[in-house]
Structure formats: C-alpha cells, structure tokens
C-alpha cells in the first residue's frame, strides 16, 4: 500500500522537469506554467473505506508572466535548483538552511528573493506535491522534535539502540525514519501510547509506565512531526501494535488526534504513509472530568476561537461518527477545556497510577 521510496535519480529527473517547463515555453513563446496540486480543505476528500484524508485532483497553474504569481514562480525555480544542488553535494538540509541558501537580493533592486522563512516553507510543500516526491526524497529534513522510550530496539547508522536502556530521556526520533535509515530490530511492546505533551511523557517515563504496561511511549511535543508519525506508523504496521493517543481536551487535541489517525489537510498527500486509521483516542475526553471527578476550577473557559474551531471540527467528515459528535458537543456545552496537566490536581502520579490504568482496563476510548 505504501509507495516505495523514490531513488535520487528519479527525483532528479522530476526536478529537471521544472527547467523543461521554462525552456519549452521560451521556445514556443508561451507563458511558462507549473501545474501545482491545490493544498487546502477544498481539495481534500475523506475516503471512508481507507479512513484517510486524500488529496483531490484540483491543480492550479503557477505562471511566470502574471504579476500575482511571478514572484512565487521565481521562488519555485530557486528552491528546485537548490534541491538539485543538495543531490550534487550529497547532503540533506533543514527548511531553515534552505531558506538562507536561497535568500539573496535581486540584482538592481532592494527586493529579496524571500523575505522570511514563512515564504519559503510553503514552496517546499508545493514542490513535494508537484513532483510527487516527499521532502526527505528532496533531501530536506523535517524538524525532529520527538522522543521514544520502551522495549524497542532500533538500528540507526549501524548503531544499535535499545530504547529500554536509555534512562528517563529516551531516544530522539530523527526526522527521516524510513527503513533505509532506521531499522526496527526488535519490539516486544503490546501497544503504543502517543502523548501530546512532553510534560506527560516525562511523567510516564519517570514512572516507568512503559515497563509496567509493556508499551512504547512516544511524544511529538505538540503536533507530532513527520518522523514521529512515521515511526508510530511503522511500529503499528510491522508489529501490529495498537496505537493510543493522549491529548489535552480542547479542539486542538482533537485535531492532533485526527492528524495521527487520518492525516492533515495541508499535507494530505502524506496520509498514505503517515496515517494510522486504527489509532484510538484515549483521552482527555470531555466526559473524563465527571468520571474522574476533576473539580471545575481546574478547567479553562472556552474562548470564542476555541468554540469556532470546535464547530469547524464538528463539520469535518472524519468526525461524523455519533460518539465523536457527542464528545465535541459535550465539550462545547460544558464551556470548558482541560489540560492533561490538570490531572495533577488529584496527585502527581494520578496519570500513571489511576487515570491511564483505568482507561486501559475499561477499554474507555474513542475510535
């Protein structure tokens, strides 16, 4: 099901296709146009059978002789050329370095090719979808901001890493975890717990929760980066481990869960190799404060932004299940959101000793 990783040769020839666009157009005296798939809610569909978000067929032409697009066209060409350079030099780079590499002042003006990184990042994403090549295949690293601990043994650059013997700190998940880079040598865990926040991950790691419950603990510090999502997916695929997601009880928590489960809207083209349609939502649920008797004063009032975001989420096709509609509506009705940290109100180890064990025992999760 997952598409095989493209070879450098294949990506290189796709990159050269950009140059052909310009050369052909110049020959025919036509406006050069790059056809770019649209990356927005209007161009994603939820496939109910495969249970992932997929990108639609809509594309938009980015042409050069058009005032609104000329700059972006020029930028696309610059980033494309910089990727070619990465291949030639046989290096990988970060988004930020790529920004600095391609930033310069246009001759005879005070205009810069890029004003800030916010301008160059989306161009990479455009290239990924246009060339149907992942950023790793373009030699661009995603940010790595995740950690793993648990009974898993990985091989990274020939080094054998036993994630059960790395103390409290765990192993930093790199941004590229494809089999060519990272091998999973052994895994005896029974399930994966993916935690939204580093604080709770630390708590569970310190308490050796993974040992007692024989699981893998992963966190992405907020919205999990690609490396974390991809590693989770590989453990799920290769060792058939169930995945439980633990997030704050707020609209952003729901969305993080849905990104893990069926992919993100902006990067829908990655769903195929990232999404885990079987992932479960273990908490915090809007029912938990009652069930676990969290006092009202550790809740936070939903603001206008929260409420409108929650309503947006209610409307996503992948949240249409009855339980989910009830879950979200219950949060809106209560007018409150809760952070995972609020569990500490009971006692510092409440998450480790009470909350999660009971959740697992009662199989109290949402799908």
């Amino acid at each position, binding site marked *: 099901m997952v598409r095989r990783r493209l070879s450098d040769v294949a990506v290189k020839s796709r*990159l*050269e296709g*950009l*140059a*052909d666009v*310009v*050369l052909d157009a*110049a020959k025919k*005296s036509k*406006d050069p146009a790059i056809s770019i798939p649209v990356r927005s809610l209007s161009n994603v569909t939820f496939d109910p059978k495969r249970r992932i978000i997929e990108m639609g067929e809509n594309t938009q032409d980015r042409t*050069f*002789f058009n*005032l609104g697009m*000329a*700059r972006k*066209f*020029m930028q696309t*060409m*610059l980033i*494309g*050329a910089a990727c*070619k*350079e990465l291949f030639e030099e046989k290096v990988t780079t970060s988004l930020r370095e790529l920004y600095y590499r391609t930033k*310069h*002042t*246009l*001759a*005879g*003006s*005070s*205009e*810069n*090719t890029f*004003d*800030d990184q916010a301008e160059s990042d989306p161009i990479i994403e455009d290239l990924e979808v246009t060339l149907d090549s992942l950023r790793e295949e373009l030699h661009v690293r995603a940010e790595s901001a995740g950690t793993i601990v648990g009974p898993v043994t990985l091989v990274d650059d020939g080094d054998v890493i036993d994630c059960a013997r790395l103390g409290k700190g765990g192993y930093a998940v790199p941004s590229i975890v494809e089999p060519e880079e990272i091998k999973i040598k052994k895994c005896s865990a029974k399930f994966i717990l993916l935690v939204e926040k580093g604080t709770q991950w630390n708590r569970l790691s310190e308490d050796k929760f993974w040992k007692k419950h024989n699981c893998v603990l992963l966190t992405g510090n907020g919205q999990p980066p690609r490396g974390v999502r991809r590693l989770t997916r590989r453990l799920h695929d290769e060792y058939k481990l169930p995945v439980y997601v633990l997030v704050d009880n707020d609209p952003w928590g729901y969305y993080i869960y849905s990104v893990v489960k069926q992919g993100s809207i902006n990067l829908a083209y990655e769903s195929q190799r990232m999404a885990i349609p079987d992932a479960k939502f273990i908490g915090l649920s809007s029912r938990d404060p009652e069930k676990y008797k969290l006092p009202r004063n550790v809740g936070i009032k939903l603001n206008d932004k929260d409420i409108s975001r929650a309503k947006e989420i209610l409307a996503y096709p992948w949240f249409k299940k009855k339980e989910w509609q009830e879950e979200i509506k219950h949060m809106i009705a209560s007018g409150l959101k809760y952070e995972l940290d609020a569990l500490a109100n009971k006692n510092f180890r409440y998450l480790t000793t009470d909350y999660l064990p009971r959740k697992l025992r009662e199989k109290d999760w949402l799908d």
Partner: protein
Amino acid sequence: MPRGARERNRLRSAAQFPLRPPRPSVKSLGFETRVAREKRTTQKDPPPNETKAAPEIAQKLAAKQREISISEFFTKNRHLLGFDSPRRALLTAVKEAVDNALDACEEAEIKPEVAVKIEAVANGAEPPASVFQAERFRVTVEDNGPGIVKEQISKIFAKLLYGSKFHRLRMSRGQQGIGISAAGMYGQLTTGKPTRVISRIGSKKQAHYMEIALDTKKNEPIVGVNRTTDWDRPHGTSVSIEMEGRYAEGRQSIEEYLEQTSIANPHVVLTYVSPKGETKTYPAAVAVLPHAPKEIKPHPHGIELGILLKMLQDTPSRWVSGFLSSDFSRVSPRLAAQICREAGIDPKAKPRRLGGAEAEALYKVIQKTKIMAPPTDCLSPIGEPQILAGLAKQIRADFYTAVTRRPAVYRGNPFVIEAGLAFGSGNFAQKQKEAAEEGPKAEGEDNDKEVEMARLMRFANRVPLLYQQSACAIHKSVIETNWRSYGVGQSRGALPQGPMVIFVHMASVWVPFTSESKEAIASYDEILKEVKLALQEAGRRLGVYVRRRELAQAEFKRRNIFALYIPEVAAATRKLKGKAVDIEALKARLQKMAVKLTGGEKTDALLKKNNPVAQLPSTIVAGEENIKQQAPNDKQTDKRKKRQ
C-alpha cells in the same frame, strides 16, 4: 450712572460704530460683551435662586464696585488677544505688526517689503546662555508702506480700540483696532519699556521718531521722546517693542507664520532675522499686487436688532426709507418703501424717533424680505495662479492645484473660499530610483515606515491661523471630506495621511472668528459647505493625479518585476538542466516576451496621449517625465526621445 457702567457704555459705543459690520453671532465676538461680562463677574451677582437680604448685599457690593482699568482687564484676559504664554506673545506681536504693514502697503498700492527682526535682550546683567533660554526680546518690524502722520502715531500705537479699519466694511487683515497697541501694552507691562516707532510719509518729509507708553488707567498715550530723525527709507514705518517672550522653532513658530504668510501673499517680499542672527528671505513669486478691495455697506440680512437700533440712532438720513436705502447695500428706494409699508411704518418717519416695537417690526420685515445678495467686489481673493505660485515657491511637492470658489454669503456677509493642495515630497522620481538602489534589507526591516499626516494651513484674509486648529470650521470641513475617494489614506475624524499640504483661505469683509485672538473661524453651515466644495474640487484633481501616478508606477513595476525575476529564473533553469542551457539566449527570449506581454510601446503611447493630468485646470505637476524615463527595457521610448 455708576462709573463702571459709564465706562462700559463708552467702550460699547467705541465698538459699535454705525457702519459696524453685522455681528455674526451674539456670543462669538464682541470685545465689549466680554468687558461687560467681566464687570458682571467682578460684581459677583448673586445666583438668581438666592433671594435673602438683597439690599444689604447690594450695599456691601457697592463698596467693592469700581472701575477696571484697561490694563487690569488686559492682564486678566491676555489669552483673548493671543498673549497667554511668552512663546505665543512673541508670535502675536510679530503677527500684529506684519499684518498692519501689509494692510497699509496694499491700501497705498505699494508692493510690500517687510523686514522682521527678533533679538534676544539681556534681562539684567547676564546675557542668556542661548536664544532658547532668553526671556526678553526686541521685536522690530519695518515696512515700506505709506507711513503714519506724526499726529496719529501715538494713538495708533498706544490707544486700544483705535484704528482705521473697524469703522468700515472692507476686506483687511486687521479689524478691531486693538492689535498693535495690545502688543505695545504687553511689552510695557512685562518690561516697562515704551514702544519705539519711526515713520516717514514721503521722501520730502523727514522721518519721525517717537517713544510712546500707554496710560493704562485712561487708555491714553504718553509720549516720551518725540523728534525727527534720519532714516534711509523714503517712506514706511518701523515698530520696535521690547517684551517678555520665548523663542521656539517648528510648529506655531514665527518662521512658520512667515512662511505661510509668504505662501498666501506671494506678492510680498519678507526678510527675517532670527534671534540666532540668521537671515532668511522669502522672495515674491508674483509681480502684481492683489486688486484693492472695495468698501461696502452692510447687507440688511447680516444685522441684528441691536445694531439696527444703533444705526437708527446714528444715521444722518432724515427719513426711515432714506436710511434703509442709503445705509445698507442692495436696498433700492422702492424696496425701502415696500419694507416700510409692510412694517406699517411711515417712510417719512424720523429714524431717531422710531419706538422699540416699530423697530422690531421693521427688523422682522427686513429679515423675511427677499433682498439681492451683497456685492462681492469688496473681496480680493488670492487667486488660483497666485496660490499655485505661493505653494510652489515654499513647498516641495510633486503635484499642486488651486481652486477659488465663486463668492458666497453667510448672514449677509460675502465671502470667498480658496483651497490649494501640494501633494508628494517633490522627489517622486528620485525616490523610486533610491528604492531600487537601497541594497539588501534584513528580515522585517521594510515594514517600519511611519504614517505621515497631512499639514493643514488655514488663512483668513491672507493671515495664517496657527492656533486652535481643531476649533476651526476649516479643520472641520477637511476632516469631514472623504479623502479616500481621491486615493489618499484617512482614518475616521482625522486629517488625511500622506505627504500633503492642504491650504484653505477664507476672504471676507468680516471673518467670524470664535474669539478676539483671531485663530479659529466659526462653523457657519455656508462656510463649511463652501470649504468642502473647494476641497472636493481640489481633491478630484488630486485623485486624477494619484491614479495616473499609480498606473505609471504599476506599469513600471510590472515590467520591472519581470525584468528582475528573469535572470533568477534563467539561472535556476541552467542549474537544474546543466551547461546545455544557453543562459543569455534564454534571458533575451524571456525579456522579449515580457515586453510583448506588458503591451509594449502601445502602452507607453496610450499613457502619454491620454494624460488626464495635463488637462486639469490650475494644476502643476513636477517631474512627471522622470517616472517614465526610468522604466528599464523601455528602448522604444528612448529611441523616440533621441529622434526628437
């Protein structure tokens, strides 16, 4: 009659001369009303609801009631005349003297040359460390006007409410006969020094030198030195006043006043020697003098009942009908007879004998009778070419326009509104070039440009108004004008934004100031409306210019953008595809496509031919050509130029 009341009446009659221009509003002006009010407050009238023991209180109060000398009044009411702070006092003194000089020159049909000199004067032994710390100054204003006969000098400079302009309805800078003597008195009160005057009325006569102080109790001049002197000017007047003051630069400074005076009076040559010793000259930009305004009689619709009563008393006419037709403008003998008939008054009745009820009936009939608008030859607007010359002379801008409205009338007073705009910083083409040459910018560096507010210049009878801007009808009209529709930014209730000078002038036989310091014009609907109409016309022209400039800029930018990006795209193509790509050939090809796609030379021609700015009336555009000359790859245009 108690002495206080007598004094009050004397002042009132001094102020209400028969031909006194109609008062625009009861509360807005009257110096005498304020004197009266001042009296009342000194007397401490009991509040009306307090009724006990009135006779005893009256007795007590009587002991306190006494005459208030003019100097006491002046000291308490400095702000009314513009002497409330040392800084403003210095400006007001200059202003009063310069206004007088210009009035006098123009009346004598002499091209005015006025010299202003301000010197810091040591107060005691030690001279001040810097002119900004100095507390005492000598203001000297010299003109080449007709001069003043020696018998008049003392009264003009040392008697309040003495002048030649109050008693007639004619457009002039001064109106009240207070200005210069108030400045002299302020000097006397703060330094004890008399006003020094030199005046000469012709080359055959000797110049006269006089030192005059003011008897502040009697409002009479005290003449000190009084002799003839040598003076190099054939005719003219020099006034010198020593006074407490503060020197300042920038907004509301003497320099600003002189600059604006020179804009609104481009026929005048001004020289200014500042306390720092620097000399600045404001040259004339037009050779001809403004045409001399005619004197007119008041229009019947502009008077109040009180003034009608006074005029009935003072008229030399023996019949009411004669009084109506000879003391007012636009009243024919036939119309006078008709008014009398409708008011039920015998046309041959003696004006002085008319009872209160009859006078009131007469007043009411006058108000509702249709009477032709007053004549307008009493007005001497600056004129569109003159405003343009004045603005272009002092303000650096890219676009200038001027509008003189047709005369209009408020409360029987004819007036003309004029507006001018100077837009841009005068270096539009230069700026574009600089922007292109600025060099690399760091992240976030581009966004810190400040919003500049337009500068408003207000004038009444060619005199700049520097204070009380927000209380003025002109300001109100400017902020109520929708500048956005002319392509200029503006937030609600504020002046428009951008590098712009807004010039508005009101010319009238009687400018309705909100107070005696003559700084803000009262908001009559007719005035607001006229100012807005003038601004709208000027704004429309500005809009045409701004849109065209944007168009030229966009076109320039469009071509420029492609020209900027082509080398990048070509270089990237080569990087991607390798050495096989002929980068120069690719650039040339793309370049050719760019010119073709932006309309090529056709666009240039079109822009030139239908230049709507060139067809605007009373408008100057600076440096238009430069914009186009800069567009790169504009080879066609260049060739055409060479051929010419």
